[in-house]
């Protein structure tokens, strides 16, 4: 097992949960509340230097009792060491974790993807809005287990919404303010964009 796990236990004690080795990779569970400080330690701490954030993703298991897991894949380029940090989020509560953008700029889009697909919110993220689905997508978060494979709306409704979307409406605020589509997006959305508030989408009724 990666010696980092022991170092983490010594420093953070109760904040570190179980650890395991899977296919040669070390996995360590961390409490959501301590994620930021653990990550700062892993990135900057002596003998750690996990300076490369490889990926951020999430897993939801079919078993509804099991919590949703955030997965952070770290790599130390200097030491050639790998570490996978997981955070368990109770699905009965609000899904929030700290954003890692202050630590790694590259976390920006990765966290947006997790938000888009799983609905996990990232506290402190500078631009939390959908990245794969479009801004006005109202069917929910597609990779959640309670999301029907073919979406929540009828095919006709999906095609109607798709056809009536302005191709330019997927742009960011900076792009869209100079695009023709700016005046065609709903006024309410324009307002939200102007306030820098993004990605808030009404959840569908039957979710």
């Amino acid at each position: 097992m990666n010696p980092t796990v022991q170092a983490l236990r010594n420093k953070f004690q109760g904040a570190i949960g179980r650890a395991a080795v899977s296919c040669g990779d070390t996995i360590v569970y961390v409490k959501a509340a301590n994620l930021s400080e653990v990550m700062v330690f892993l990135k900057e701490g002596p003998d750690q230097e996990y300076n490369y954030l490889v990926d951020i993703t999430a897993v939801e298991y079919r078993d509804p009792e099991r919590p949703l897991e955030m997965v952070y894949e770290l790599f130390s380029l200097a030491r050639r060491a790998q570490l996978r940090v997981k955070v368990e989020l109770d699905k009965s509560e609000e899904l929030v974790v700290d954003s890692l953008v202050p630590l790694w700029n590259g976390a920006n889009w990765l966290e947006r993807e997790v938000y888009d697909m799983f609905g996990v919110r990232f506290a402190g993220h500078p631009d939390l809005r959908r990245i794969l689905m479009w801004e006005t997508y109202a069917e929910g978060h597609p990779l959640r287990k309670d999301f029907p494979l073919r979406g929540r709306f009828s095919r006709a409704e999906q095609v109607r919404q798709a056809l009536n979307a302005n191709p330019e409406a997927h742009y960011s605020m900076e792009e869209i303010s100079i695009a023709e589509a700016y005046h065609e997006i709903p006024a309410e959305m324009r307002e939200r964009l102007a306030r820098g508030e993004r990605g808030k989408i009404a959840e569908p009724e039957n979710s």
Partner: protein
Amino acid sequence: MGLDQLKRTGTESVVSSISPNWVTTRLDFLINWGRSNSLWPMPFGTACCAIEFMATAASRYDLARFGMERMSFSPRQADVLLCAGRVPFKLASVIRRIYDQMPQPKWVISMGACASTGGIFDNYAMVQGIDTVIPVDVYVPGCPPRPEGLLYGILMLQKKVRGETLADSSLRDEDELNSQGLRLPPSLVDELSEPFGNSIHQTRSG
């Protein structure tokens, strides 16, 4: 002359007012011969099918033999919209806009299972057949179709073009969205998008 007719090209509105006769059929033959042998494709390649399309255009299969050597990357200079690959809902408005920007006469080839029916992607993100978005002239089956398959589809389109007549100006009517913002009735879109084949057995959750 109604506004509708004004939108069509001059020759066609004049000819369409004459009943089909020897002159118009000869003229048809000449024009269709020209059109069918100089179809300029607008490649709309979104996925793996586009790779096969490139193979078709390259030297071994050589699309140029059929008058298609000039890929038209501007919709305004294209005759055929060649949709090669799956189209997600996010691209539906884009392909629709490209189609609308093409001048008449225009045709559409839907290449591959995904473009024609949604293929293996019977999910929340994918258009289940581009015919729910734009009218399609020729469907080429396969995943992906072999270059021979695509060439056969192109030859079929040429045959279709050769069968057209200037006397029927409705061929050049623009496809417009109805009041519901769709080009087909909603029930028909639902019916076209019904799961079929293996996708019936996919697990439905929720």
